[in-house]
Structure formats: C-alpha cells, structure tokens
C-alpha cells in the first residue's frame, strides 16, 4: 500500500524509501535520485502528486524504483504525477531533450547521427540493471507539433521497466539505445509522428497492454 495516499505516506513502503514532493526535503526527483548511495542496496522514491518540471537522469547501477502516489495504481488515468520538460534536439544531440534518461553516462545515451549513430566506446560500462517506474506521466511539451526529436524517455546500457506510465511528445517520444532493454506494460505512448526509435531493434506496443522494447549492438 506504499502508493496509496495517507497521513503517513511512507507507511507500507519498502526499506530505503525517500519521499519526494513540493515543500519536502526532496522537492525534485533528481535531487532524491542524486542522494542515493553508490552501493548495491535497492532504493525507492515515493513521489507525491504534482507537476515536476525537470529532467531526470538515473546513472546508478543498482535497483531504483520510482513510485507515483495514487489511490488507483491499476488505473493509468488516475496518475497524479506529471514530469515535464520542453526541449527539441535542434543542432544538439537528441539525448539532451529527454525527460528521463536511464544510462550510466553521456556516451551511453547519445543518439549521434546517420544510420550507424553515435559510436559508443568499446569499454562502455553498463548502467542500471534494475530500474522500475510506476504510475508516472512523462511529457515533452516543446511545441504542440512535430518540430524535431523531443524525447520523453532515453535508455542506454541499462534495464528498465515501466508500468502504468504515459509518454507524450510529438516526435521520437521513446529512444531505446544501445544495449538497452526496456519493458513498458499497461502504459500509453502518445506521439504525433514516430512511435519509437532505436538504433537496432525496437519492438513496441502502443496501447495500455504490454510493450516490449529492446536494443542490442
């Protein structure tokens, strides 16, 4: 019952759960993610209802779970947490536009250009092996039409699962990069122009059933 609203919101949450919310010690998701220790312990963020206008980068290697607080965890339409950013690639790399990035470092997240994309160094380390997100709405609202790549999610060299999440943008909404395995279930992807991008392999499903995406070198 960790996700259900109550007077003591952390009740029922796993050990190592941090509360994120307006007027709390951690008012942004990134500040809480950045506070996590660099060890193998699993950590959870419980995110209170609100609009979070920020980009979130998860570089930590070990289990990180983001939970949106909700009284109806099995209903996508009842999500209370909105994570927004407004960016378009323009002359820079698509990676810089993402609302959420799950990758160990910049090299692991760059899209690059041309059919072969960015050449990730051969000694590139792997990033998060067990990232999970529940009941979160990700929006890249740069413009209300397609004007260039505007990512909501970018993954590279990581494993990530999304449950009851929405991803909304107008172009290149989701990018699954090299050595990224991304599973999206009971979620919605809303895009004007391109549903899914990925350098090598991208399998997807649009509506709130199950979506599986993976990319390998």
């Amino acid at each position: 019952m960790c996700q259900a609203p109550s007077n003591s919101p952390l009740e029922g949450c796993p050990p190592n759960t941090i509360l994120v919310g307006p007027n709390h010690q951690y008012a942004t998701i990134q500040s809480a993610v950045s506070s996590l220790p660099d060890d193998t312990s699993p950590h959870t963020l419980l995110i209170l209802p609100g609009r979070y206008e920020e980009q979130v980068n998860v570089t930590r290697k070990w289990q990180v779970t983001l939970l949106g607080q909700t009284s109806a965890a099995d209903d996508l339409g009842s999500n209370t947490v909105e994570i927004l950013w407004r960016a378009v690639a323009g002359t820079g790399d698509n990676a810089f536009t993402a609302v959420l990035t799950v990758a160990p470092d910049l090299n692991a997240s760059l899209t690059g250009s041309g059919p072969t994309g960015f050449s990730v160094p051969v000694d590139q380390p792997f990033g998060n092996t067990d990232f999970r997100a529940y009941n979160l709405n990700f929006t890249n609202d740069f413009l209300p039409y397609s004007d260039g790549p505007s990512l909501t999610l970018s993954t590279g060299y990581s494993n990530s699962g999304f449950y009851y999440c929405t991803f909304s943008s107008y172009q290149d909404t989701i990018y699954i990069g090299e050595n990224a395995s991304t599973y999206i279930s009971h979620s919605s992807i809303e895009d004007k122009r391109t549903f899914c991008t990925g350098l090598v392999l991208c399998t997807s499903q649009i509506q709130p059933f199950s979506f599986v995406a993976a990319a390998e070198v």
Partner: protein
Amino acid sequence: MKANESLMISHECALGRPWNSQHRSVFARNYLGDSILPAGYIEWSSSDPRVNNVTLMGEYEDFGPGFDLTSRLQGGAGVTVELSASQWADFDSPEKVFQFVDGDLGNVDWIDWSI
C-alpha cells in the same frame, strides 16, 4: 494513439521507418488509432530504403481503425510483414527478446511479473 485528440491526423503516421537495416520490430495485438498509415511501416526513402534480409518490420494480430490489412499486403514499396503464428512465436515473450550484453537471451530478472 494521437498525442492530442484535437490533432487532425488521419491515416498518415507510419508504424516505423528504419533508421538502419538492422531494424527489427513487431507490433503485436495493438489497438491502432486512425492516425496510422494504411501501409503500416515505410522504407527510409525510395532511393535509400535501408531494408534488407535482416530487417523485420512486423505486425501480429493488430486491430482497430489503423489496421488496414488490404493496404498492408499490397506490393510495391510495402515493407510491412504480417507474421504467422510460428513467426510470432519467436518473439512472444520477454525471455525471447531481451539479451544480456554478451548476446544471451533471458535478461528479464528486472521485470515486474506481478503486473
């Protein structure tokens, strides 16, 4: 799904377009809204299709106003493959899709199966 219900998009959004010929994707059992292009997937361009024998731009049992079987199966530039049940069986569970960095399949310990 359209990003915004007010968008005037009808039958013009491709399922996918191959950034390179290594593209392999399957849309399976999806409801497809009316924004989807009747042909489904498209090649990169007529002069540079980026489609070869590795490329797979597949569908299995999609439905809804964005699924137009007649247009999908038309020849010409049609690159969409309607998978048979046995072809879909190669991809029908996460264990058959997610690889470890070394290429072995079965990288699924991070998936929440309770949902």
